[in-house]
């Protein structure tokens, strides 16, 4: 995206840091549970609360999840990594430091392909992924002068996934987050739920004149909790930078917050007030060593990832890039599609899934992937009925609605509702004759050259047969009739 300023065209440079909560039963360094929605301070061990003498012990499951995610991002897995302490004081940070990874993260450089609306893709570099503890939660609005602290989140495992500054528009940032979330969900390493805070995003934004390759001072916008807000925040911030530069000002490196109500960012703390985190290797933990065998065994269990699935859907089912991209965006949607498309015409399957099926799915919150409006099996059978001529595509729309209402098998519905397509030439001809007989003036008009009225006749006959006439045959027979 190019922003036209008063002095020329500007380009946005965006890097994203995503905090993704690891799916695991226990926290990163303690055995406490991690489920969302528990009563405050219900899931807190003495380790999480930073009690004297308590020590962290790494949760192997979280390490495996980080490796799995690294492999999913086609990234370098560092067999030796180091946990470091990030020291700062805050009421919801019980130890007075966060255990994180600093100069030796568990995952190094990787790549993520973003899918753009025109069906093309772009590679965005991944800088690193590291494991770290989450802090607790401070609640400031429950008492006029006191803050309340909930330590349920304290110690929960996060993966911080840092991109390279490779994105150039809010749309690309959105595509990155969407794709990252898709991959995490495919891998089963993070549920990607931004509303519950299990995926959070910090955006680093700077601008530069088009054609320039310099990296100007960036601002970090913290903890934005939806993809839409991230895009809004980036756009606002980029325009703010351009305004400052064009008015002869300088951008100060700082951390900013996004106010989603006002749609603007505002300063949280400047660089001069930035914390000195005094990172040093955590002496309570040995370097984290992962064996190549473990990496290989995790690799062997990786699912087919969205990019591979998309390529296969294009090759195997003849989908175009856009449709294939839509279909793989959710793992469950891709599975559903394959359930419908297997052994059938892929494009027909895609049309039905992306059309009537998605529309119905989105029409009511009661529908979920475990409770879809129509089963993949029945939708597939319905397509079979179209193919063998039992029903027309037009009739199929009705069959689909009846399937949603009754959950019945399409063949049964066709039988019960008498929706079987009329392919008997005599019956169709009879209906045509009746329509012709009732509208002699219109017949005359057609014969006089008013071809447009042909469609009207098709509609009338279709109506007379309650939509059951085979549309192809109907067209052919009407044309023949007029030539007589």
């Amino acid at each position, binding site marked *: 995206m190019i922003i036209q300023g008063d002095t020329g065209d500007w380009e946005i440079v965006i890097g994203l840091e995503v905090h993704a909560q690891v799916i695991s039963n226990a926290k990163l360094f303690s055995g406490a549970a991690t489920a969302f929605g528990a009563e405050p301070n219900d899931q807190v061990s003495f380790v999480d609360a930073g009690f*004297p*003498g308590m020590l962290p012990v790494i949760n192997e499951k979280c390490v495996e999840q980080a490796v799995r995610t690294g492999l999913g991002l086609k990234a370098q897995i560092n067999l030796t990594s180091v946990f470091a302490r990030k020291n700062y004081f805050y*009421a919801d940070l*019980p130890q007075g*430091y966060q255990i994180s990874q600093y100069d030796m993260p568990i995952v190094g450089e990787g790549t993520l392909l973003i899918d753009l609306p025109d069906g093309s893709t772009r590679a965005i570099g991944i800088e690193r992924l590291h494991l770290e503890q989450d802090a607790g939660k401070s609640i400031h609005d429950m008492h006029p002068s006191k803050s309340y602290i909930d330590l349920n989140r304290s110690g929960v495992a996060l993966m911080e996934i840092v991109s390279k500054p490779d994105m150039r528009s809010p749309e690309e940032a959105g595509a990155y987050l969407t794709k990252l979330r898709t991959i995490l969900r495919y891998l089963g390493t993070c549920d990607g739920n931004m509303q519950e805070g299990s995926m959070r995003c910090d955006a680093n934004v700077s601008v530069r004149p088009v054609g320039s390759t310099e990296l100007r001072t960036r601002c970090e916008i913290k903890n934005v909790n939806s993809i839409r807000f991230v895009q809004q925040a980036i756009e606002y911030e980029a325009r703010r930078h351009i305004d400052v530069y064009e008015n002869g000002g300088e951008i100060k490196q700082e951390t900013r917050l996004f106010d989603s109500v006002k749609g603007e960012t505002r300063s949280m703390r400047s660089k001069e007030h930035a914390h000195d985190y005094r990172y040093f290797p955590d002496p*309570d933990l040995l370097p984290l060593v992962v064996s190549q065998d473990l990496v290989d065994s995790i690799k062997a269990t990786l699912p087919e990832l969205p990019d591979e699935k998309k390529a296969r859907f294009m090759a195997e089912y003849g989908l175009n890039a856009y449709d294939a991209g839509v279909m793989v965006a959710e793992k469950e949607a891709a599975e559903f599609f394959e359930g419908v498309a297997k052994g059938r015409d892929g494009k027909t399957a895609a049309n039905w899934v992306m059309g009537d099926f998605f529309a119905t799915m989105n029409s009511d919150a009661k529908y979920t992937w475990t409770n879809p409006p129509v089963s993949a099996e029945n939708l597939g059978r319905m397509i079979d009925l179209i193919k063998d001529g039992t029903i027309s595509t037009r009739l199929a729309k009705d069959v689909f609605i009846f399937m949603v209402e009754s959950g019945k098998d399409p063949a049964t519905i066709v039988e019960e509702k008498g929706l079987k397509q009329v392919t008997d030439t005599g019956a169709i001809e009879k209906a045509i004759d009746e329509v012709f007989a009732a509208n002699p003036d219109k017949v005359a008009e057609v014969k006089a050259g008013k071809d447009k009225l042909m469609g009207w006749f098709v509609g009338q006959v279709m109506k007379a047969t309650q939509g059951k006439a085979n549309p192809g045959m109907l067209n052919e027979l009407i044309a023949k009739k007029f030539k007589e």
Partner: protein
Amino acid sequence: MSELTKLTIAQARDKMAKGEFTAVELTEAHIQAMAAKRNLGAYIVETPDLAREQAKASDLRRQAGQAGALEGIPLGIKDLFCTKNVQTTAASRILEGFKPQYESTVSGKLLDAGSVMLGKLNLDEFAMGSSNMTSYYGKVTNPWKSKADPAKKLVPGGSSGGSAAAVAARIAMGATGTDTGGSIRQPAAFCGITGIKPTYGRCSRWGVVAFASSLDQAGPMARDVRDCAIMLGAMAGHDPKDSTSAPMAVPNFEAALTGDIRGLKVGIPKEYRPDGLSDEIQKVWEQGIEWLKAAGATPVEITLPHTKYALPTYYIVAPAEASSNLARYDGVRFGLRVEGSSLDDMYKKTRAAGFGSEVRRRIMIGTYVLSAGYYDAYYSKAQKVRRLIADDFKKAFETVDVILTPTAPSAAFGMDENTDDPVTMWLNDVFTIPTSLAGLPGLSLPAGLDAAGLPLGLQLIGRPFDEETVFKVAGVMESAAGFTATPEGV
């Protein structure tokens, strides 16, 4: 004073096994002695009721034929170990009134071995100090008196000063200590008892209030080598709750006391003879070498060239870790809170009121050496030097089996001495710190008295996880030294 308090752990164990007295009687004798010697300030909290209860249960276990390795033995626990429902303070005001809901692994293992806890022993605040003068709960007095100046109060050493004083004064049969730079060995030497800092990783640190995590190590303090071996056997072992705890089997340390050290090579580091080392220390060291020679071992001069860097290295690494470890004492969840006008104000007021000057000094140093711009010059460099110091030992142990040095550069000093300059105080640990940085086992045992009648200690240093050789050699030296002196009134 009851004769029962004069027994060693091994003697008491054997006599109770024969039914000569019960754990209740032994414990009662110690409770009486403990109460009679409160003037020493050795205990922060006495737990006589709990001790009586535990002693009763111990006698029942013995009757049921379930006696553990320390069945019925009354011990003192350094107040750095978290003890369930018993106040644990690290000798700091900031933890006043803190009663943990958990038991440290080491003190729990001692209880599992059948021991009885008499109370929580005084120490330097957060184990930072070499004199036990920095405790919020009062100074500890060394039970030994100088013949030259009997009125002078002497320090017991530190940080495990309460432990050393209690064992020497016979108000605990043994005690737990912790050693970060010499905190078991130096007070053991000052109080004429034996103590061993085992190899880093031998004893779990879980439930021990952390000072410097990469150095802290728990160990026993007792009246002789055998008692230390018995206690360490009960304290040691892999703990999955401590990631730095070594997954190694615990040998039978007592069985290592064979008395046979023929053919062993004993390293004598030339760097441990700094200018100004007192003649008396020098003499006792040479005496030690002679004893080992007489027992068939061979002294070998070795070099540990980076020794002189050990003290500055330690005073970067230990405060750095401490500055981070002590961040959790913030007034939010436990211990002292001094209200303030804001969160930061509460932190400042709480920590200013809760920490003593030595602790504050080390937090400041540690914060400084970890700061952006100073990290490489201090912390990072110190870590490199620490590796060189460890390599010195590694190389030396290619030719020798054990190393013999003095434990401390002097005997116990007066409470009013060494107080002006913190660095003078820090020099007390010049012989013990290198071992700590290298993570090696180091044992101090009393080897003689100086002219003032005060005990002097010698230190034996072993290979990683080779406490058995250290105990074996220490046993031989102990027999040769025949150290029977006791403080006044014992």
